[in-house]
């Protein structure tokens, strides 16, 4: 424990260094903005802004991106409350009570509760992260290629089992992400693979950012334009320091549900595919269940704002746990962070703790700092953020498209990638309209090269015997859980359909 505290202290000091601290503040501000803008969330912000992090060292870069992630979780509540439109899917549950509070003239109370609950959620989850990360990383050191591959199969299975989307379409999304990751030079033999039309641009493979920016930048903007028709109206908010202090004192009203939501959010966040959205919805459900006045939920109960906000912040920290310790992202945002780490020359996974302790503990330290910075900035600048939210889409949309185009060009500096990004954006939008989930494809393109490498390394070491994945206990456990995760929802859907078919003739008779 003493060792952990020492490392954490060093990490905190690192986060407070001028460059790192400036990056955290900048990241938080951008995150709050991105999170608050309807249709854009942490994943969009991180995907679009990752290319500009090449300007600073990896530690400052990860702090900046993690701060965006953090800020976006706070920011989502601003539009949920003032516009009645969730800034991101993670803030959907916040609308249920946040909007009624705003309509009844208590927007300040809702916004302060969201900020304070996010802070509590963030703090609890960072403490849990600090306690759980080192032992999990130590355990993960036992992992060989077979375990790594099985763990990735498990990560994909969670998307199928817990994603709640159409199963064949989810699997299709995962597989297309893996196929796109396979384009380029074969990692073992070095042979060119799937070079369409002999276009040289395919030789260097498809950078994950091309897909991520295409889907979460261009595709998401097209989707948002369709959903909102470019029209939003903000609810005016006036906040004075006196009101903020008074609202903060009301924390005792929702401290219980906030703490529960934080712990729940953290553990749900660690599961790939589960993430912040289900965590916030579950937390809202729990708060309502345990409330003495459940009937007031949905009409403007402040606990209905605090519970999901605490959970989505805690989940964002939770999703970083498997990314840092196992090299498996817990959410689409952490998938992009993981891709960024690979670009910076780092290998995410348990060895990161021993090989780059400065990086890991700097990141952990930055989470504490970012949490506090976000609370302060959020409370002080809420009225300003609300003003920015009313920016017309005809200014916002072209700005985001431009950031996407230059962001898609920067990593490889070829127009080939920008065209691909545009294609992915449009196709992703068209697929999304038909209920094809796009997040699994992004996760798969990041994990694809790692999955293929670990699978083929395992098979080479076992001289081609696939039983290697079933003979090793950790690997077998992962595979069994993955199979269960896939089969349980399939069985449940089959049973539900069978029951529905049975009740139909009865109803007819």
């Amino acid at each position, binding site marked *: 424990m003493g060792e952990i505290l020492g490392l954490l202290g060093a990490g905190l000091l690192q986060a407070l260094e001028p460059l790192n601290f400036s990056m955290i503040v900048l990241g938080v501000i951008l995150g709050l903005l991105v999170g608050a803008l309807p249709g854009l969330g942490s994943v969009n912000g991180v995907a679009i802004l990752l290319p500009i992090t090449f300007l600073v060292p990896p530690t400052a870069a990860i702090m900046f991106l993690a701060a965006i992630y953090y800020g976006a979780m706070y920011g989502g509540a601003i539009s949920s409350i003032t516009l009645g439109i969730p800034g991101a899917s993670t803030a959907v549950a916040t609308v249920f009570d946040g909007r009624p509070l705003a309509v009844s003239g208590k927007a300040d109370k809702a916004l302060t509760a969201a900020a304070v609950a996010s802070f509590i959620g963030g703090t609890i989850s960072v403490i849990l992260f600090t306690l759980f990360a080192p032992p999990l990383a130590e355990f993960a050191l036992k992992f060989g290629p077979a375990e790594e591959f099985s763990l990735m199969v498990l990560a994909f299975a969670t998307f199928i089992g817990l994603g709640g989307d159409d199963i064949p379409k989810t699997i299709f999304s995962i*597989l297309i992400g893996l196929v796109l990751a396979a*384009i380029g030079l074969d990692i073992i033999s070095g042979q060119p693979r*799937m070079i369409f039309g002999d276009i040289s641009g395919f030789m260097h493979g498809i950078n994950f950012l091309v897909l991520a920016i295409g889907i979460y930048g261009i595709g998401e903007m*097209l989707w948002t334009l*369709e959903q909102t028709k470019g029209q939003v109206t903000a609810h005016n908010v006036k906040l004075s320091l006196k009101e903020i202090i008074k609202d903060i004192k009301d924390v005792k009203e929702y401290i219980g549900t906030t703490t529960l939501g934080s712990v729940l959010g953290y553990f749900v966040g660690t599961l790939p595919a589960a993430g912040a959205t289900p965590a916030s919805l579950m937390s809202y459900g729990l708060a309502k269940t345990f409330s003495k006045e459940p009937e007031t939920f949905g009409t403007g109960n402040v606990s209905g704002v605090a519970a999901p906000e605490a959970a989505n912040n805690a989940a964002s920290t939770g999703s970083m746990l498997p990314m840092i310790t196992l090299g498996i992202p817990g959410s689409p945002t952490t998938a992009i962070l993981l891709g960024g780490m690979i670009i910076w020359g780092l290998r995410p996974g348990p060895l990161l703790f021993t090989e780059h302790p400065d990086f890991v503990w700097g990141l952990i330290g930055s989470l504490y700092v970012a949490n506090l910075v976000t609370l302060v900035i959020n409370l002080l600048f809420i009225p300003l953020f609300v003003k920015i939210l009313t920016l017309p889409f005809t200014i916002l*949309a072209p700005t985001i498209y431009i950031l996407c185009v230059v962001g898609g*060009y920067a990593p490889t500096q070829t127009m080939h990638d920008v065209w691909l990004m545009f294609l992915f954006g449009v196709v992703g939008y068209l697929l999304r*309209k038909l209920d094809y989930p796009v997040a699994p494809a992004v996760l798969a393109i990041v994990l694809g090269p790692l999955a293929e490498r670990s699978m*083929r390394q395992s098979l080479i070491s076992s001289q*081609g015997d696939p039983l290697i994945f079933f003979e090793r206990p950790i690997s077998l456990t992962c595979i069994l859980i993955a199979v269960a995760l896939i089969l349980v929802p399939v069985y449940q859907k089959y049973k539900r359909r069978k029951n529905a078919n049975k009740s139909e003739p009865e109803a007819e008779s």
Partner: protein
Amino acid sequence: MTVKTAELVMAIVLALCSIGLMIKSAELNITWIEGRGPGSGAWPFWLSAGMLLCCLLTLYRWIRRITPESRNTDLYMTRETVVIVGTSAGAILFLLAATHLIGLYFSLMLFLLFYIKYVGRHSWALTMALTIGIPVFIFCLFEWALKIPLPKSITEPLFYPIYDLMYS
């Protein structure tokens, strides 16, 4: 086209793409190499085969009317959606095509001019401020701070004096 028809068309198109990917990956060895495991093309080949299977499953579910989309007779794209999304997609398409001809910076200016003035109908003062301000900001961030040159095509010579200032 209704959502119902769109799901059918999409599943068929994706199934054909999956077959195309299978054929492409089969240009390499897709068989099991004794003692070494799968050949170079096996991984994408079997993944593409999985994609095809998913498309066939979606088609089966469409025929049995299991997916919500297969029962949805609403329009896949309303006229309003086509206009709003088509304008954006068309403008980006123009931006990318124009980048090859006149470089990114001048294409950005035309793109912004179109979007802010023609689509947004904002004032000329705001239009000009953003049309000039955003490309200048992009230039400073990428060319000056990040040292990432963005494509300029035939307009490259116009930037020589700025390079002289930057690198002198």
